[in-house]
């Protein structure tokens, strides 16, 4: 492995002005030097990071979640102000106050969460803020023409007249890319573009990125999926806990080397799973159906059961009913759900959250900021939120302060939460440590059923592994676990039984998830394939039939 020192890729003189064309591959179009960013809550997201881009390259920005990739790019795109450091674009010092400043200088960003108006058409979204005018109104036909022209030029096929809300995730992403191009972006930042895509859509995206590269655009590809990075990028900058761990030509490094630089150790997502001994069913869901506000069947006749000591995984592209399923099981949809869901024989549909928790159900929510924690309150306060009502933690009206602190200290140690102590506000912790606290809370109340929704989203690999091991440990202690995750690696490795959800239905079930390939799952997740017959939620084998 050969590490290229940053100095060697710096342009010879700073007065250099951008050259046109791809012949000058040696020249840097953009340089970020010595970037440091400390957030209000004391988290250092970037520390003395150097980052440079050559004209016309696809540059990977890789690193674990929380390594500071997104922050660095937010700084480049004017969304965050750096605490220290400088940005030079074509040799010129820049200070972007807002994304608007960055856009004017030819930098575009496609966010992980799309910034589109769902009720507008593609063309309307495209020209938002720069509408072609006819008289006082918007020249809609002109907007359509502009969209079509750009779409043809870059082979990013979209229907300009389609409403954005009716588009698939992949299509929305294309609209976002076109939007940036329409605003004159020469440097395009893609923030984990494949996170929401199926394997097929990912391949299509890669083809389009190569077209963009040929047209002379420079692309920053933020990702932590090494295979993808390896497949498409020219160079790579690796981030590790807020610092740059090096810049490499892609040809010079192997996936293993990148992975080692990212985490400082080889990532192993293999766990020794004990043999499963299932007991009686804990959760029994029958005919669960929910029609949402848009008159769409968000849940369609879901049948599912989870036995003690079993992890049931639900895979699927986001927005295919997983969120509604969890809400139905945690009281979020109230009585608007038809069908039944019983935990050890007690019906839980139409119960409120407190009664559901009293049945022995724990829930790790997808959104740890808005649901999982009270940011300003202490770690110990956040840990007792689901159990302070129990006699173990109060004497009548008064809380048992000392026992609570002891519990918090014990869990902090057990889950290796990096913090100054139980009294530290949880909002001061990094995402991974915050998630550890939440998982610690939910797992330490001896639940009979644990619902884990995206339990490792946005956390570093160390924290993810800890969470995974804890889930397996819970399973071995006969807890029934419902795992919902968009991370195929995680869900295939952990699940004892795996379902795929598409369009509000369970379209496939696998008894041996580790033997299924990602490609095959992708077909089900995209709705290209569906298992035939009555899947009763039990006993469907993996010999699926193709539609």
């Amino acid at each position, binding site marked *: 492995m050969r590490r290229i020192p940053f100095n060697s890729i710096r342009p010879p003189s700073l007065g250099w002005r951008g050259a046109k064309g791809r012949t000058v591959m040696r020249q840097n179009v953009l340089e970020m030097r010595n970037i*440091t960013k*400390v*957030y*209000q809550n*004391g988290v*250092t997201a970037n*520390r003395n990071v150097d980052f440079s881009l050559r004209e016309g390259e696809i540059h990977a920005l890789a690193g674990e979640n929380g390594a500071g990739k997104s922050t660095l790019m937010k700084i480049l795109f004017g969304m965050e102000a750096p*605490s*220290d450091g400088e940005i030079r674009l074509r040799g010129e010092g820049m200070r972007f106050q807002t994304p608007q400043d960055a856009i004017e200088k030819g930098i575009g960003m496609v966010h992980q969460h799309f910034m589109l108006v769902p009720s507008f058409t593609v063309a309307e979204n495209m020209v938002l803020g720069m509408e072609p005018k006819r008289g006082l109104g918007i020249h809609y036909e002109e907007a359509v023409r502009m969209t079509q022209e750009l779409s043809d030029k870059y082979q990013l096929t979209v229907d300009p007249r389609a409403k954005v809300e009716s588009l698939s995730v992949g299509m929305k992403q294309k609209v976002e890319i076109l939007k940036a191009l329409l605003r004159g972006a020469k440097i395009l930042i893609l923030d984990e573009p494949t996170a929401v895509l199926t394997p097929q859509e990912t391949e299509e995206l890669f083809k389009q990125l190569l077209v963009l590269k040929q047209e002379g655009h420079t692309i920053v590809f933020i990702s932590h999926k090494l295979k993808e990075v390896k497949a498409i990028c020219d160079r790579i900058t690796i981030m590790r806990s807020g610092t740059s761990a090096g810049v490499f030509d892609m040809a010079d490094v192997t996936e293993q080397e990148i992975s080692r630089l990212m985490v400082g150790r080889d990532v192993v997502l293999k766990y020794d799973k004990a043999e499963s001994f299932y007991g009686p069913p804990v959760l029994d869901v029958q005919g669960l159906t929910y029609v949402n506000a848009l008159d769409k069947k968000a849940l369609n006749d879901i049948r599912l059961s989870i036995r003690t000591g079993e992890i049931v995984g639900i895979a699927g592209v986001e927005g295919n009913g997983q969120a509604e399923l969890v809400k139905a099981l945690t009281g979020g949809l109230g009585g608007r759900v038809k069908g039944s869901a019983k935990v050890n024989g007690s019906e839980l549909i139409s119960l*409120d*959250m*407190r009664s*559901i*928790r*009293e049945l022995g159900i724990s*829930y790790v*929510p997808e959104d740890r900021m*808005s*649901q*999982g*924690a*009270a*940011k*300003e*309150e202490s770690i110990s*306060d956040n840990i*007792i*939120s*689901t159990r*302070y*009502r129990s006699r173990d933690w*109060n004497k009548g*009206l*008064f*809380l048992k*302060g000392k026992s609570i602190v002891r519990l918090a200290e014990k869990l902090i140690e057990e889950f290796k939460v990096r913090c100054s102590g139980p009294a530290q506000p949880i909002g001061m912790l990094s995402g991974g440590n915050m998630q550890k606290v939440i998982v610690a809370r939910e797992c330490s109340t001896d639940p009979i059923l644990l619902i884990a929704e995206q339990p490792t989203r946005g956390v570093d690999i160390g924290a993810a592994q800890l969470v995974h091991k804890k889930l397996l440990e819970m399973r071995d202690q006969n807890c029934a676990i419902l795992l919902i995750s968009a991370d195929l690696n995680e869900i295939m490795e952990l699940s004892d039984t795996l379902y795929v959800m598409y369009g509000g239905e369970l379209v496939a079930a696998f008894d041996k998830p580790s033997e299924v390939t990602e490609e095959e799952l992708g077909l089900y997740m995209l709705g290209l394939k569906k298992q035939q017959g009555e899947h009763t939620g039990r006993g469907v084998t993996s010999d699926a039939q193709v539609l």
Partner: protein
Amino acid sequence: MLKYFDAIRTLISVAIALVIAFLIIAMISEQPLETISIFLLGPISTTAQIGNVVEMSIPLMFTGLSVVLLFRSGLFNLGAEGLFYISGVIAAIIAIYASMNSFIHPVVAILGGSTVGALLSAIPGIMKAKWNAEVLVTSLMFNSILSGIGLYILNYHLRDAAAFANVSYKFQETARLANLIPGTRIHTGLILVLCCIVATHYFMYHTRWGYELRMTGSNRAFAEFSGIKTARVIITVHLIAGFLAGMGGAVEVLGMYSRFQWSSLPGYGLDGALVALLAKNNPLSVVGAALFLAYIRIGADQMSIMSDVPAELISIIQAIIILLISAEQFLKMWKNRQLLKEAEKLG
């Protein structure tokens, strides 16, 4: 350093406000140094003046405490004003018309005022919990309603025609609160409010209800997720806050006056919001915040009597303090630098 950032910022805000006040005094006063010394030292010049500071701080502590509870539970409710007033009216009615011995009488009058305060306060609480009606709006509306009702009762039922001003009949002697320190007007209400403050502190940090209150205020979605019935918490907080504000009104009327004589809202409720702001929503800090506010007010009164600077200067000081404390960006640069330093230390 970072740990105390909020406290330091509050102190700096107060200091800046005082410096500006001194500058204004220096510009408009003939004898600036003497005026400033009256302003600063007047409140502690005699026992009677110290007494004035303490007795003025009592109602401020009551309303401040009430507002702390509401703010802490995430409710921007400014209704303490109207509750303070109407509870004073209720206490006055009991003080005028009931006959009891001198121990029971004030207790009944105070409890009467507090209970009415609690019940009236629950109305915006229920409206918030059930229909998510914005408490800032409903509580301010309630101030107007309660002020009208109080004035009606004073004018048509309590007014003493024999008196020259718009005041009520005299209270029974048995209803008045006992004097605590001879030579001042400090009354037993002081003991009551200090007990309430300590009790609220324990309530907030050591009880289940207080825990529910803090979690609901910090993140209502999280509280719901954890199984806390936040609607119930919101109504409970309103009941307690109303009870405290009401107690403040009753205590003030019985401790300081022999007739009910407020023909408009006395302003203690809104001052309570200022106290809560200075106390950073911490019950124990309410004592210091209320004493400080009372101190500079007495100082300003002294100044207007004994020098050529009007008491309205106090409004400028208050406005600057509120502005600086509520301005989030103030001293943020300093905080950022501290953060940077701390981060470097950690490596």
